[in-house]
């Protein structure tokens, strides 16, 4: 009983949003196949951006609103490869290299800025995003074609100065990563289950002898998952959806790779340093960690992952507005992470995925649900911005309240 209560109080945010999603789904009344395939698409293209937020949180720098800068480096890389007429996987690989180089430089500068404004990283990151946007506009709208010699039939504005404000990727680049290899959702589920079974067997063989009850629990877990999978595959209405939906495997591997990086960095020396800086800067400094360097590294990691995320996002979209595509990246990714139950000083890969699924589900259902209730499409659109801004505002307030309460308690105890 107590554990159930604890479960509810710990996952209050997730439960609230899950109920909200359920309600929106029931009201919207969209076909399940449309919802699921759209959701897969959205989750695939958004999750890396959300994962980019985890490392700075670990290093105690709060929500990194500066991932917008990483997003802009990806856009710059795409402009370049479109100019070089590169397509397919080669285009993606070159774009990855270019955006990594740009975002390492940007991340380094951003990290130095964060070190100068310790304690105000979040607002600094946000303003740095706007400032970076100005620089980005300056480079691609003014300097390209004047100071930097550049002309491209497809890209340049007719006057010769600047890049057009809508960038359409050349054929073969749209979905270059997604379209290489696609599998049915059902096949992926079965593969995941097989892997899970193997992992379980490995665990039982290795550690099972000493711990009988743990084996029992894991077998029961395995049976439940197996039953669930069988149900999904055998119930006709569900299995029709599952077999029709396709999953882009290369993108999936990319997402898994990044999440493994975020998950297992904690077990490296660097990850431990991130942790200890995040716990207490003073203690970390006293124990001989170069705090400034660690914070810069955390920012670089975050910026680079964000630029990969934006690359995955844009190759999925195919067309983007050159100068505004990055604007909502920060707010939406941060809101998604918070919806998953993360807070400003603690976030895990699991929370990031739960958050992306719930947030994107709400995003895709809100307009049609709003139309059904109020007979007005705009309500749903505004509702989405209310949710994303509101979630961030509430999380920030709660965090500050908590921090000040702790500070007061500390002052009292002294």
């Amino acid at each position: 009983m107590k554990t159930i209560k604890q479960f509810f109080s710990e996952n209050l945010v997730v439960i609230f949003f899950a109920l909200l999603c359920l309600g929106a789904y029931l009201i919207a009344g969209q076909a399940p196949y449309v919802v699921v395939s759209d959701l897969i698409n959205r989750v695939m293209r958004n999750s890396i951006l959300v994962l980019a937020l985890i490392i700075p949180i670990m290093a105690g720098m709060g929500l990194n609103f500066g991932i917008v800068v990483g997003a802009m480096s990806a856009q710059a890389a795409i402009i370049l490869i479109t100019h070089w007429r590169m397509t397919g996987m080669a285009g993606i690989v070159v774009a990855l290299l270019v955006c990594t180089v740009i975002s390492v430089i940007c991340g380094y500068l951003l990290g130095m800025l964060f070190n100068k404004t310790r304690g105000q990283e979040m607002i600094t990151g946000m303003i740095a995003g706007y400032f970076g946007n100005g620089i980005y506009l300056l480079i691609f709208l003014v300097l390209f074609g004047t100071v930097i010699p550049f002309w491209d039939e497809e890209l340049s504005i007719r006057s010769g100065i600047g890049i057009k404000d809508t960038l359409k990727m050349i054929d073969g680049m749209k979905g270059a990563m997604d379209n290489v290899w696609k599998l049915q959702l059902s096949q992926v589920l079965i593969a995941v289950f097989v892997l899970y079974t193997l992992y379980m067997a490995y665990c039982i063989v290795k550690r099972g002898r000493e711990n009988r009850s743990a084996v029992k629990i894991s077998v029961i877990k395995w049976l439940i998952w197996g039953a669930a999978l069988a149900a999904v595959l055998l119930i006709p209405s569900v299995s029709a959806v599952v077999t029709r939906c396709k999953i882009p495997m290369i993108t999936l591997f990319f997402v898994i790779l990044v999440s493994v990086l975020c998950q297992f960095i904690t077990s490296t020396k660097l990850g431990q340093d991130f942790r200890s800086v995040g716990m207490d800067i003073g203690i970390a400094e006293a124990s001989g960690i170069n705090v400034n360097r660690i914070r810069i590294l955390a920012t670089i990691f975050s910026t680079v992952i964000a630029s990969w995320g934006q690359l995955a996002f844009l190759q999925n979209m195919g067309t983007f507005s050159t100068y505004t595509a990055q604007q909502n990246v920060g707010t939406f990714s941060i809101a998604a992470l918070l919806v998953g139950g993360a807070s400003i000083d603690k976030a895990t890969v699991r929370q990031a995925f739960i958050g992306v699924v719930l947030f994107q589900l709400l995003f895709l259902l809100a307009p049609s649900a709003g139309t059904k209730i109020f007979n007005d499409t705009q309500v749903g659109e505004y509702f989405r911005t209310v949710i994303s801004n509101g979630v961030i505002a509430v999380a920030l307030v709660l965090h500050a309240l908590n921090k000040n309460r702790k500070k007061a308690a500390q002052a009292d105890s002294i």
Partner: protein
Amino acid sequence: MKMKCRQFFEEFGVTRMIAVGFFLAIAIAVPVLHLNTLTLYSQALTRMAMNGVLVLTMVPIMVCGAGMNFALPIGIICGLIGGLISMNMNLQGFTGFFASILFSLPFSLVMGYLYGLLMNRVKGSEMMIATYVGFAVISAMCIVWLFVPIDNLVLRMQMGRGLRKDVVLTDFWAGILDDLCPVTIGGLTIPLGTFLFLFLMCFLVYLYMHSKTGIMMRAAGQNPGLAAANGINVDRMRIWGITLSTVLGAIGILVYAQSYGFMQFYESPKMMSFSAVAAVLLGGASNKRASIFNVIFGVMVFQGILTLSMPVANVLLPESNISDIVRMIISNGIILYALGKGSGKK
């Protein structure tokens, strides 16, 4: 002398000097490039006057120690509500304008008070929270604007329900202060009415900041611990400063709207706070210090740059919207500079 010069430059800051230098350069470039100097200068003056009160909102809130007012949208929303009520009653001319201010007061007082209470709970991270509370209020109000009951059909969207995105003020009180007593000196038009209103507001704030309460507020902002030891209720001072700032924000958007000729609802006030913050910082304010002089000087330089850079840029680089780019780089650059400096001292 040399030391003094150096100290002056250090306090003035590199970013600020670049901005002021830039302003002077384009102000000189306008007549040199044979542009329509007098019209452009008149436009610049109008924009200075119309933005003045919005920038003035920064003074009380920064002095009382709650940081830059990124939650200006809250005040702006209150002003919009006041304006909406008065327009819905079809009040015109001076009655309409002052009724708008009057109707906005109860909202801005209550909202300012609540916002002040919140800010007292979250000391230390006011700016970030202010920004997102501002954004959240703006987006929540977007839904409210869609459902607000309106009697005056001029305000309603042509199709469906809800308020228009931009309401034209020509039938209500557009230019009520601008056209009050415009002074024309050899082709240069000065919107004296708006300037007088701005100076009146500045004077009132000046008086308030130098009254006993104002001085207590300053003490609370500069050194909360010491102020509390001297028997000043720091939290209450902060609430007063924030409330005053919200009230000024409401008045500010009405002054802005009368000069602009439109009342903009929905998402347009979202980014207004950044320009206002940048202007006061450009004028020489720092995290906890802001004076009337900073406001006037800052709004002059900032709005001057914005108005004059566009025509100058169009001569040098045709068909570019460099003015917007300049605004982004200067305003956010100066905020970053202030953030770096503010935290460095701790």
